[in-house]
């Protein structure tokens, strides 16, 4: 029971990190119709910049803030240099160009920071642990991460649902041509949406860095998970991305910890030990296939 609770917390944490990445990806796709394979790079850059900034500044909080802003700035530069020329192009061309970008940035990170995994310290304030149930304790940092990600998700929902800029973003996702016809400076809107998306992914990288090893290519797997999230949630739908992120995060985490036990109910112990991990790693893709078999456009398609 306590194991289930701890794993559910871990799943929630993965899901929320995924949401920070997927939200940027889905808005960029919804508003600008650009498939961005290089979005996972922002997550990696967030983590690396976090390590460097915190070591340089000497203060965890200021360093994390600086890294998040820097990741957003890198996103803006990439938008100016590459993505601006991809709007309105074939999706396949966007995939190839951003794939090239991803290879280059991953390699650049290898050149600058080396291939050895780096560690990021935790802030002293959050490095303790709290009692959960009985002897089971849960690290404060994980709870803080969940709270921070939830706060950002809430702020994002407010910004998109209640502000003028958010209104433009929503309009861009559903009626891009009408928005242009009404004289909105779409180019500036695009750039700022892209920058915010990059910053969110960078923020996810900074948050995750103390819990994972910071290494080149660390964003690639999360990027693919974020794609799964978007496909399940419905392309361009923010609330769809949120629901799907939690679904994917929980399915993956709980699957990995309980698949072997579940398989043991049906198979012998040795067979279960083999089948369990295989099933666990494939589980989210099975969930995705199941969702798509029923609803080909995802759970909450933005465009009818």
């Amino acid at each position, binding site marked *: 029971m306590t194991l289930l609770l701890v794993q559910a917390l871990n799943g929630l944490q993965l899901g929320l990190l995924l949401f920070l990445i997927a939200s940027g990806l889905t808005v960029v*796709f919804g508003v600008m119709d650009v*498939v961005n*394979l290089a979005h996972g790079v922002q997550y990696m850059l967030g983590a690396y910049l976090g390590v460097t900034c915190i070591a340089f500044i000497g203060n965890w909080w200021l360093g994390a803030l600086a890294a998040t802003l820097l990741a957003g700035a890198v996103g803006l530069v990439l938008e100016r240099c*590459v993505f601006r*020329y*991809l709007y*309105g*192009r*074939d*999706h*396949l*061309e966007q*995939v*190839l*160009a951003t*794939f*090239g*970008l*991803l*290879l*280059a*940035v*991953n*390699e*650049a990170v*290898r*050149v600058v920071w080396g291939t050895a995994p780096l560690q990021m310290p935790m802030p002293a304030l959050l490095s303790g642990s709290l009692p959960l149930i009985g002897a089971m304790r849960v690290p404060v940092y994980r709870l803080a991460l969940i709270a921070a990600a939830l706060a950002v998700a809430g702020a994002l929902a407010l910004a998109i649902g209640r502000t003028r800029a958010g209104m433009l973003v929503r309009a861009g996702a559903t009626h891009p041509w009408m928005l242009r016809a009404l004289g909105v400076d779409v180019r500036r809107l695009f750039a700022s949406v892209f920058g915010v998306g990059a910053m969110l992914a960078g923020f996810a990288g900074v948050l995750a860095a103390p819990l994972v090893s910071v290494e080149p290519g660390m964003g*690639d797997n999360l990027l*693919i998970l974020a*794609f*799964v999230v*978007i*496909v399940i949630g419905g*392309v361009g739908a923010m609330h769809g991305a949120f629901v799907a992120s939690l679904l994917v995060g929980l399915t993956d985490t709980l699957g990995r910890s309980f698949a072997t036990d579940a398989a043991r109910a049906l198979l012998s112990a040795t067979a279960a030990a*083999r089948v369990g*991990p*295989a099933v666990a*790693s*494939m589980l989210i*893709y*099975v969930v*995705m*296939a199941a969702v*798509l*078999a029923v609803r*080909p*456009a*995802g759970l909450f398609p933005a465009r009818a």
Partner: protein
Amino acid sequence: MSYAVLADLAARVAVFGIAALSLDFILGLGGMASFGHAAYLAIGAYAVAILDANAISSAPLVFAAAIGSCAAFALLSGAIALRTGGVNFIMITLAFAQMVYFATGSLADYGGDDGYTLLGRTSLLGPRSYFAACLICLALCYAFCRTAAASRFGRALQAVRQNRVRVQALGLSPFAIQLTAYVIAAAICGVAGVLLANGTEFVSPAYGAWQRSGDLLIMVMLGGAGTLHGAILGAAGVVVAEEMLGRLTEHWRLIYGPLLVCAVLSRRRRLR
């Protein structure tokens, strides 16, 4: 470059030429942008590994197993993926390929993540005949794709890409046509997987990594989608460029990546 190195490079070009050719069959002719085509390289290669571990190395059996398993997986995943279109198809094929990637990585009996070293090569694909076998397979696959493209079925496939609704109006089923093409392409790519495994005498989940699927797409797009021979030229270009840049510097991707971005950006905008 010695003769052996050159032959090795040419064989790699042939193997990836087959894989790119099969991708062009569905992408260029059928308009299906699969970002998970390397999964079929992996399935073909693992067919070799699994039969090898069970002491079966007869070429007809190995090829039949590889083609059969690729076709079966393509039928299942394609039936789901083809319910969607456009960018969703790109992402779903990617996700299915990841599924294969993790599944092959969890095959503990066949090396898991570390990969599996073959006990011996498949018959007819020994070191002496390997190069010739690759070229023959490439020629056969190319001839097959050409014939298929010119056939009634090939015409229908291209018609689906151009105008799905009209094909429906003619009484044909676009879904069935696309799914058939998807399965055929997967089967051809399985052949490339068998050759790839025998070339290195080693099989690992990395054969199905999503970067590999990206490489295949690059080959097709650079060579010119829809031309079939372009895919082979693209494969030659990419394999040779990787080799040359790799000799130049360890960080060759730092050059390759921006080159790719420029290549895409300099393409003329097409109206589709």
